[in-house]
């Protein structure tokens, strides 16, 4: 299946999910996780629809101007752009570690449900652990 048809398919799936979500909104059971399904359908549908439409627009612009695709590829591979992106991500990661740490402490002090704290703590440790793992892996590779 071509790239264009894939984007059309995602857009149509998005529309179908929105319609299904809206149609089943009234019929959804009032309790249990099933009552979340229509809202999830609408949410996921909106994401798929907007993603599909933006990709189709990109494709149309590239078809009109073939140089655009080449320029996009150059911009994507450009070493300065990559360095800027990686540096921004690294800075954001450093900030995220502090923000999540403070948030975790705040939730503990607010005596929020232990499940929430454990889940957030596990996510925090996973992120820190994955950074440590990547660091060790890259040290061996380079």
């Amino acid at each position, binding site marked *: 299946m071509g790239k264009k048809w894939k984007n059309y398919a995602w857009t149509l799936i998005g529309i179908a999910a929105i319609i299904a979500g809206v149609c089943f909104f009234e019929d959804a059971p009032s309790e249990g996780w099933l009552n979340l399904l229509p809202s999830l359908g609408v949410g996921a549908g909106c994401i798929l629809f907007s993603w599909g439409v933006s990709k189709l627009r990109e494709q149309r612009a590239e078809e009109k101007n073939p140089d655009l695709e080449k320029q996009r590829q*150059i*911009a994507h*591979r*450009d*070493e*300065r*752009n990559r360095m800027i992106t990686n540096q921004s991500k690294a800075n954001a990661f450093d900030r995220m570690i502090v923000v999540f740490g403070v948030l975790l402490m705040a939730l503990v002090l607010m005596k929020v449900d232990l499940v929430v704290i454990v889940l957030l703590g596990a996510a925090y440790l996973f992120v820190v652990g994955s950074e440590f793992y990547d660091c060790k892996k890259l040290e061996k590779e380079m």
Partner: protein
Amino acid sequence: MKNRLEELRKERGIRQEELAEALEVSRQTIGSLENGRYNPSIILAFKIAHYFGMRIEDIFIYEEE
């Protein structure tokens, strides 16, 4: 690190866009290199030297801090 990129480019009458296309980088990268805001990777430095038919050290001037 200083470089003679702008001088060499202008000597040869090449536009930033043309140099960027030949080196497969963005025009902004050429601009940043010329302004000394960005130091290239060794691969890009080799590409630039190869493009101008010169040695890296003839284009990029290392300055001890």
